[in-house]
């Protein structure tokens, strides 16, 4: 018999707040954290108001020395803050035997973007040497390394970088490792800290970013809407403590939910264009992995980035997988309020599913006055729906490069 894998702790630092409580409260009220960004573009110009984004307001993990501050890019700081919250809730470190063997599975797309940007600025603008720790703070696996050091986790330490599917893959791989008997416990999740001028300008050059809504910048991200404007970037981290059910029960850890299935696929068609067949195959694979039927799912947290091609493709893929049940299932894109966290998106959105399931509400797709005619599902438009029971949920992540990954989870039932 397959082992069961449960969530015994999770932490979230996001545009919506400093911890999982603030994150859940904001989702339950439909508050958007998207706002105009204003920062120095390195050329000495303030570029206020050119972009909207969803930044993390404050992130200050405990770092012992000034040297450690310089060693730790914001991407790792986000992971440490979310990781501390998760470990505290789970009591993981109160069980030294479990902690020592625990794995760390982290997803990130851009890694230490700020450190890379600073190094290029030092070299090409200020004509000085890059900082001595540029490599160590920029490398994609730095966050996973910091988590292992902070909590003494000596199992497998791996980082996944598959663009917007990174953290869904990290969590899915940790889930499979525990279910398959390789591990008893892992910290798994994703982190991103991409709101730096170079990254924004590079995304902007692709012409996929939303122009700020002049009237209400907070409403600039409008997934599934006829008047969608494109992607809004966000940043933050969500980290979960995943654990084999037996060890969680044995040590009387809080059991907050269960991971039930994980599916992947590749489009193998185009570097950016989404593909209905590839997306639906990932969802079907996750259902098969979970041993569930489409009608067992109550809520889908959509990838829903508010691009024309993406919204339409995902809606069609959901209809293909769920058939007649598609119109009964609630589908929403919480990116409408926290933006697209790239490599951390899947983890933060899995956290949104857990918050919704535990809080008994369906998170909304905000700013959806009129749906695109080709998007005809129940998107929980404009207001969270309270008093809804979610038993099992699905979270979709579809990446540039054609990597699709889907997680299924639900309430824990003995």
């Amino acid at each position, binding site marked *: 018999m397959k082992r069961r894998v449960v969530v015994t702790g999770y932490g979230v630092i996001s545009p919506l707040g400093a911890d999982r409580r603030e994150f859940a409260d904001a989702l339950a009220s439909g508050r958007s954290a998207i706002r105009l960004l204003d920062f120095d573009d390195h050329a000495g110009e303030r570029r206020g108001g050119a972009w909207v984004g969803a930044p993390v307001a404050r992130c200050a993990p405990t770092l*012992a*020395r*000034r*040297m450690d501050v*310089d*060693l730790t890019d914001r991407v790792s700081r986000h992971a440490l803050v979310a990781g501390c919250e998760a470990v505290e809730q789970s009591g993981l470190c109160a069980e030294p035997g479990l902690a020592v063997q625990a794995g760390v599975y982290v997803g990130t797309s851009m890694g230490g973007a700020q450190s890379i940007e600073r190094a290029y600025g030092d070299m090409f603008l200020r004509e000085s040497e890059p*900082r*001595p*720790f540029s490599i*160590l703070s920029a490398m994609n696996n730095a966050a996973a390394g910091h988590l292992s050091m902070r909590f003494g986790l000596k199992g497998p330490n791996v980082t996944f970088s598959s663009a917007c599917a990174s953290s869904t893959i990290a969590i899915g791989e940790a889930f499979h490792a525990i279910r398959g008997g390789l591990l008893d416990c892992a910290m798994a999740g994703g982190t991103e800290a991409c709101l730096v001028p170079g990254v924004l300008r590079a995304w902007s050059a692709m012409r996929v970013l939303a122009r700020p809504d002049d009237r209400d910048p907070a409403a600039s991200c409008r997934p599934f809407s006829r008047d969608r404007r494109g992607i809004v970037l966000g940043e933050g981290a969500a980290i979960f403590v995943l654990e084999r059910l037996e060890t969680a029960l044995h040590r009387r850890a809080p059991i907050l939910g269960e991971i039930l299935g994980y599916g992947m696929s590749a489009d193998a068609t185009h570097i950016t264009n989404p593909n209905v067949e590839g997306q639906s195959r990932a969802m079907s694979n996750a259902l098969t992995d979970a041993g569930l039927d489409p009608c067992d799912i109550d809520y889908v947290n959509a990838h829903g980035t508010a691009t024309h091609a993406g919204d339409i493709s995902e809606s069609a893929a959901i209809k293909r997988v769920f058939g007649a049940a598609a119109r009964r299932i609630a589908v929403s894109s919480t990116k409408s309020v926290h933006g697209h966290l790239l490599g951390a998106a899947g983890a933060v959105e899995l956290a949104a599913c857990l918050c919704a399931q535990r809080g008994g509400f369906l998170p909304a797709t905000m700013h959806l006055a009129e749906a695109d005619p080709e998007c005809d599902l129940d998107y929980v438009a404009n207001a969270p729906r309270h008093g809804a029971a979610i038993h099992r949920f699905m979270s979709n992540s579809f990446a540039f490069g054609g990597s699709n990954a889907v997680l299924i989870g639900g309430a824990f039932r003995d």
Partner: protein
Amino acid sequence: MSAAEILRQLAAERLDLPAARFEAAVSLREAGIDSLAAIDLIVAIEERLGIRFPERDLESLRSFDDLAAAVERLLAAKHASS
């Protein structure tokens, strides 16, 4: 400020390292300064004083006294050339 004083100050600032422990230690490693912390300290000294440790000298800097002496030498060279 002497080279030794600047070293004490930077070690405290960057590495949280008490001066007494740094000076009494036979080696940087014994003072708790590993290779990464040593690079951090050296770059901090270079930036504070506008000097540059030659790459080939780094291996021979094994203690507080070695570092202080090297800083004195580099400062003297800098003043002589300016």
